[in-house]
């Protein structure tokens, strides 16, 4: 194994890694369901970018990137949207039902 060259893929790979760390921190520590959901989506964005880096490094056969991970990410983004939409609707309904305590915090 040798160190990766300093190129766009490496830079964005490091960015993806940091985004995952930031998102994880938010998911665990933030109060409120909505904020945790946002943090979870930040985390997801980082994971998708890491896939993009794998795709970029797998460029070949005349393609700018390996099409398979790119196709997986497109599927992933759509599924993440669906899960997020469902979660948001649940949070809205929870607030409606139980107006005094909209917090998602520990209690």
């Amino acid at each position, binding site marked *: 194994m040798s160190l990766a060259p300093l190129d*766009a893929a490496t830079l*964005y790979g*490091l*960015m*993806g*890694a*940091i*985004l*995952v*760390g*930031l998102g994880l*921190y938010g998911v*665990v*520590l933030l109060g*409120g*369901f*909505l*904020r945790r959901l*946002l*943090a979870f*989506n*930040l985390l997801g*964005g980082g994971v*998708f*970018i890491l896939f*993009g880096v*794998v*795709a*970029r*490094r*797998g*460029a*070949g*056969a*005349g*393609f700018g*990137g*390996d*099409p*398979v991970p*790119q*196709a997986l990410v*497109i*599927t992933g*983004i*759509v599924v993440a949207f*669906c899960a*997020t*939409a469902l979660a948001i*609707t*649940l*949070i*809205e*309904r929870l*607030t409606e039902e139980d*107006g005094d305590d*909209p917090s*998602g*915090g*520990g209690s």
Partner: protein
Amino acid sequence: MMGLVLDGGIALLTIGIAAWTIRAGDDFAAVVGFVAYGLVLTLAWTRLGAYDVALTEAAIGGGATGVILMRAGARVKPAPAARASRRARIIVGALSAAVAAGLSAIVLLPPQPAPSLALEVREHLASTGLGNPIGGVLMAYRAADTFLETVVVLLALFGVWSLGRDAHWGGRPGPALRPAEGGALPLFARVLVPAGIVIGIYIVWVGADAPGGKFQGATLLAAMAILAGMAGLVQAPATAGRRLRWLLAAGPIVFVGIGLAGIPLAGAFLAYPPGFEKPLILVIEVALTVSLAAMLALIVAGPTERAP
């Protein structure tokens, strides 16, 4: 060198916006931060040369998710500022940093040579009749994924509908229609929607050979429906309507129908008989586009809020 400076700038901006979104004082500010995050992430995707993904991230990841989040940000009461203890913050911070460091190590020490299926895709792309390798992967080699993905969208819509009040089941989503009067939004919708519909259909069509595709195009079409609804030009349909339900089901039904026909005709589920790949993929894409646009627009519209 200039390119690297630009990439470094985009990466720092993205991380900065993500950190700001985590730290933001109130929920609505965090939502705005998240939408901005989606936009800069789109830039990162274009810099990685993944234009198909960039279109998806802009349309769905940032755009559609942003609209729903805005709705929630306006409705959900802000959470009380229950700050975690100093000790918890240090421990969670250290563990999150360890995860980030581990991933960074994988990025910095990649396997040589980089694993790739690009060659295999190139070899078999001609048999699908498509020029866009990502479209080929989505519609041929991983068609089962794409099929299940549309089912996931449909299930999410059912989930959203089930969260409405019992009395409103089968009714219309969203608040009652405000009469369209003069003003910027109705004018904007009248000007933009026709152009947006054309661009949406174009993105679906061009997806066979260039970046684009049904999910991106369908999201744009859904966005046009939502814009027309926000401007008060059209009313959300009653969710009990039989026509609407067939419209939602049409895409998955056509997909699974052609997929099942592949068992006797081509020897496998979701296999296309040789010579008919392109026309069959087109039929599926058109049916899916219509259904997906309706599903996405209704997911954004939310649960039913008016009795039928």
